[in-house]
């Protein structure tokens, strides 16, 4: 082991196993990957999460599609035992969607039916950052006395993603803001105050949503880098780039996802996607992302497709055409950057 390969020495408040395996067979069978995710950690990833926790800064995760950016957030929440919320950003997402919204249509409908509730509070819909900052006030839409809703949300753990909350730390949360580069350029800047001060005001009711630094959520923001992020936003984030995997890491990821899978399927699939094994190139980055690799293994296992069969050749060609790569096994699986 060279000095550069030696593990970094520090106190890890986030200290996952190198391979976080799925602990519930039920989750694997039902395809629910959110509650009990598999993740293969590297030292840079663990360090970046620890630094983000220590500095209470958002962690901006870069990397290609399928590199494991979003699943990192789920895994971190799972390892820490914190609540987990996510918001997938689209081109129409506004910053207010992540904080709170008011259902004016429902209010209009209530008004036309003579069932208008007093004030705006019953019509407020908390966003994921509100749930993460202050789940109790989110349950009551800000003000318990004014809410008047029979929501059954008295339990502060309750939230729209109850399945990922049960039994977890009630005061801490991990928030995933996924694919922020899809949003209009103003959106990241409009999140600077809530993410920096851990508070925001619900404009329609004046209610102040806030949390203390000790209970600050860990916010992971992913980007596929389709758009450049505003400089002011970047300066306030911890940045982590998940690099292209090596062949060794891909195999490790495959084994973590399918611990029962024997080499009779794993090895041929790996060779088919990446080309023949070459010990001297085992640590070079490859042009197959982990999500694609795991999905291929899952499909081959589930459908009983063996590499080399007619079905496999058809599948591999389709994949190759989609991504503009050479045919697998013809030495084209390598990253040619």
């Amino acid at each position, binding site marked *: 082991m060279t000095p550069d390969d030696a593990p970094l020495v520090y106190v890890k408040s986030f200290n996952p196993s190198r391979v976080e395996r799925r602990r519930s067979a039920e989750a694997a069978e039902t395809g629910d990957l959110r509650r009990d995710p598999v993740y293969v950690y590297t030292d840079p990833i663990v360090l970046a999460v620890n630094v983000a926790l220590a500095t209470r800064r958002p962690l901006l995760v870069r990397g290609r599609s399928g590199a494991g950016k979003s699943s990192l957030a789920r895994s971190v929440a799972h390892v820490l035992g914190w609540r987990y919320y996510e918001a997938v950003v689209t081109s129409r997402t*506004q910053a207010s969607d992540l904080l709170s919204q008011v259902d004016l249509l429902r209010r209009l409908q209530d008004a036309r039916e003579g069932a208008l509730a007093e004030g705006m509070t019953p019509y407020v819909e908390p966003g994921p950052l509100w749930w993460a900052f202050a789940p109790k006030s989110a349950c009551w839409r800000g003000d318990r006395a004014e809410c008047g809703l029979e929501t059954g949300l008295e339990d502060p753990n309750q939230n729209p993603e109850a399945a990922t909350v049960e039994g977890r730390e009630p005061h801490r949360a991990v928030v995933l803001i996924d694919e922020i580069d899809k949003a209009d350029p103003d959106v990241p800047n409009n999140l600077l105050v809530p993410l920096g001060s851990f508070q925001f005001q619900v404009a329609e009711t004046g209610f102040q949503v806030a949390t203390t630094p000790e209970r600050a959520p860990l916010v992971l923001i992913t980007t596929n880098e389709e758009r450049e992020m505003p400089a002011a936003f970047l*300066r*306030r984030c911890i940045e982590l780039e998940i690099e292209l995997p090596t062949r060794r890491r891909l195999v490790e990821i495959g084994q973590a996802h399918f611990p029962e899978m024997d080499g009779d399927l794993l090895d041929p699939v790996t060779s088919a996607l990446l080309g023949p094994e070459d010990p001297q190139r085992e640590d070079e980055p490859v042009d197959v992302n982990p999500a694609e690799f795991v999905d291929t293994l899952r499909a081959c296992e589930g459908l009983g497709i063996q590499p080399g069969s007619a079905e496999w050749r058809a599948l591999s060609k389709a994949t190759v055409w989609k991504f503009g790569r050479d045919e697998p096994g013809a030495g084209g699986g390598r990253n040619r950057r």
Partner: protein
Amino acid sequence: MTRPAVSPADLARALVALRPGDDRTRAAVARVLGLGWAEPEGEESGGRGPRGGAGQAADSELRRPAPGPPRPPSGSERDDEVPPADEIGDEKATDEPIPTRLVRTRSISRRPPEWLEQAEPLARPGDVVATPPELPPLLRPGRERGILSVAARTGVSEGDLDLERVIAAVARAEPLRAVPRRSVPTLARGVQLLLDRSDAMLPFQGDLRHLERAVRNFVGDDALEILSFVACPGRRAGSGSIRRWRPYFPDCAAPRGSRVLAVTDLGIGMPATGPSTAAPGEWLEFARRLEAAETPLLVLTPYPRERWPPALALSLSILSLSRATSAGNAARAARDRVSRGTP
């Protein structure tokens, strides 16, 4: 109140919370924060050098354990090479050197020293300068992104409920056939960037390249279409060779709702007549057809308002590309279209 950018204060917080055991780990933490790492002068790596009282006080402050997030339960596969916080002895902790000099690598890497900006590289014998030096951009660099993003947006009726219109309808006892919503600016519908390649724009070719890059950066490849034209896009437009250009309508028309940005001199730099000059009426007709297709046009021109053709200054949405231009100018230019009663 926004939080300040990542700074050495964040490194201090991270060092207290993570208590790195060696300089390599400290350097790795600093790198994650985008900060550089330099050994304090006169000290060896990992050693204890002379420090003043204030420095020692700061060190002891830094080393005080801070409340951190709860640690997960240890498992059989945990990384056991690093002892948990409560098992690290005080002596080991106090032996840890704390950096006394931090260097921002980000600013160093992004901003070359002043002397380098003023220095002219010596030409090697026989070297031929193939490309002209990059000229300063037309828009002020700090404002450019904001100006262009405002200029590139269009309004979509997807905002909050438009209560005034709802109340007006309810007061008249009219049924609401559609939910009236306020308009919100967005880039979601995409942008078509039209670049004038006529001879009069040759002095601005570098600016066109720069604008193209700048718009691409915040719009993204998927939502951006870039076409070239000469004189007026209504004639022909396209990408690549001029021989492959096609009539703008209907071959090059932008998707409904997207913004059309045309970077042109509006014929200001050309003779008043000739094949490479578009008459004002041609531009107005082009703008009218774009408005009818709900793809609003905004013209970006490197010339000041005083030189705009009067007939176009009154009827087109035009924004001057200059150091004095602000995002407010861009917003007003884009709004002018609305004030003239177009959709």
